[in-house]
């Protein structure tokens, strides 16, 4: 048997997304919010002054929730002298749009037409919240369409993404998957789920017009700007599921969302990049569609809501990414439990490749020792090939 040579993180990730067997099972993290950052920076694993000096010299991003500085801290000591030796192979960063102002509300809106708030609770930890759709009437949507010029993406923000990605890859051997929001989130964050369902049923051409407007105004231009920066892996967030199934009728997903998602995939593949979709919830119903449009990997996959073994057997073309329960197991169990869990999990889901484990979503209030145990476990037990 030929011994597999040690791969770089990029080789390892691309190998898995190509459906081949890497040197070991790679790992992934989406990021963490301020609550997790607070816990981490008050734990024994926190970034030291020496760490900070190196990270700043290397121009690593400290932005939350992507937490690249903390992700780098998980590196082995031959990469980062103060590293935790619990290597993370891939993380994420994504671009939002700007703000718009409209006549029907005093509130400043996100580019999708959504309202938002930043809240500092009594414990002094900040939180960013999506607070609901603002385009609740047809005439509001039509006024939104008049904001076309203000909704255009800013090229400078995409150039910055490229710097972030290159820094992490060259200095820390970490792949940064990059992307934009998907067509469903862009639509429902602005008009709301109820309007999506109502228009899909009663005025499908109006809904299609809105989806096309967002595609032409900022989704396609953003994808062009993103692909100009030549990312290796594109990962777009677009939550289709809830715990028991899709947030919409699958016919509506296929009619309104799938064609646009297929365009996203095409943009990535035309530039020789891999395409990964992040979608929370139970999304098994549309896995065959993901295969059809050529998606390389699906991320999130809370194990209680998804039949992961079935996905692995039935859809070997698609790599499973995430899939480690962060809402209960990583929050409440012990580091020892988590190490044992990931050892067995890798044996089951990773034995034929196609698996990049990690927390299913942004880290929130999980104990840092559990997160270190998870990534150390993936590093230690991932050598199964």
């Amino acid at each position, binding site marked *: 048997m030929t011994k597999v040579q040690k791969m770089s993180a990029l080789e390892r990730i691309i190998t898995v997304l190509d459906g081949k067997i890497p040197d070991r099972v790679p790992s992934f993290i989406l990021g963490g919010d301020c609550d997790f950052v607070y816990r981490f920076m008050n734990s024994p694993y926190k*970034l030291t*002054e020496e760490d*900070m000096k190196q990270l700043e010299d290397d121009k690593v991003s400290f932005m939350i929730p992507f937490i690249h500085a903390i992700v780098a801290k998980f590196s082995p000591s031959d990469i980062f002298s103060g590293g935790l030796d619990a290597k993370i192979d891939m993380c994420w960063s994504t671009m939002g749009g700007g703000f718009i102002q409209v006549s029907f509300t005093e*509130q400043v809106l996100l580019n999708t037409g959504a309202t938002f708030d930043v809240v500092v*609770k009594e414990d002094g930890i900040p939180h960013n919240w999506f607070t609901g759709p603002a385009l609740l009437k047809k005439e509001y949507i039509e006024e939104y369409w008049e904001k076309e010029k203000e909704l255009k993406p800013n090229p400078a923000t995409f150039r910055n993404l490229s710097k972030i990605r290159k820094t992490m890859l060259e200095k820390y051997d970490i792949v940064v998957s990059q992307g934009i929001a998907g067509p469903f989130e862009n639509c429902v964050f602005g008009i709301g789920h109820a309007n999506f369902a109502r228009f899909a049923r009663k005025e499908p051409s109006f809904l299609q017009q809105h989806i096309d407007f967002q595609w032409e105004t900022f989704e396609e231009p953003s994808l062009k700007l993103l692909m100009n920066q030549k990312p290796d892996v594109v990962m777009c967030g677009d939550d289709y599921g809830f715990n028991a199934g899709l947030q919409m009728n699958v016919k509506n997903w296929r009619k309104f969302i799938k064609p646009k998602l297929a365009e996203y995939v095409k943009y990535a593949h035309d530039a020789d990049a891999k395409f990964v979709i992040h979608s929370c919830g139970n999304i098994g119903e549309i896995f065959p569609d993901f295969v059809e449009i050529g998606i390389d990997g699906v991320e999130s996959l809370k194990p209680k809501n998804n039949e992961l073994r079935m996905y692995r057997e039935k859809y070997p073309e698609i790599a499973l990414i995430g899939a480690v329960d962060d809402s209960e197991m990583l929050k409440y169990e012990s580091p020892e439990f988590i190490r044992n869990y990931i050892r067995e999990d890798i044996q089951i889901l990773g034995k034929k490749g196609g698996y990049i484990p990690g927390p299913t979503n942004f880290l929130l209030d999980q104990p840092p020792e559990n997160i270190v145990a998870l990534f150390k476990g993936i590093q230690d037990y991932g050598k199964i090939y």
Partner: protein
Amino acid sequence: MCAKFRGIPAIIYSSLWRRQIFGKLEKDFPEKTKFAVYITDQPPAVLIKINNGNFEMEKLEEVKEISEIENIDCDGYFVAPQSYAFGGPVALQKGIKEGKVKMKNEAIIFSILLRIMT
């Protein structure tokens, strides 16, 4: 829900908090600074003190009118409705002409706000 701060004051707090938790606040704000921000459609005004790698933000419940911000002991202040604050340089210039945007020590305030928002 009980919140200490919301809206633009919370955005400012969030930016300073991120620098503080990562130990970068003193480098980014080496000078001792005390400034007030009053988003007129998101009261109350707040007073922000930055010193030696730490910051404090307190509500100024006593400020009810724009003119009352003059009574606050600070190095500078920024007063604007939310829409003008988010609107960029053009909106700010418009707001200054209309008397809806007011600043004390513009150079200091702009320098601080620019660092906070980047």
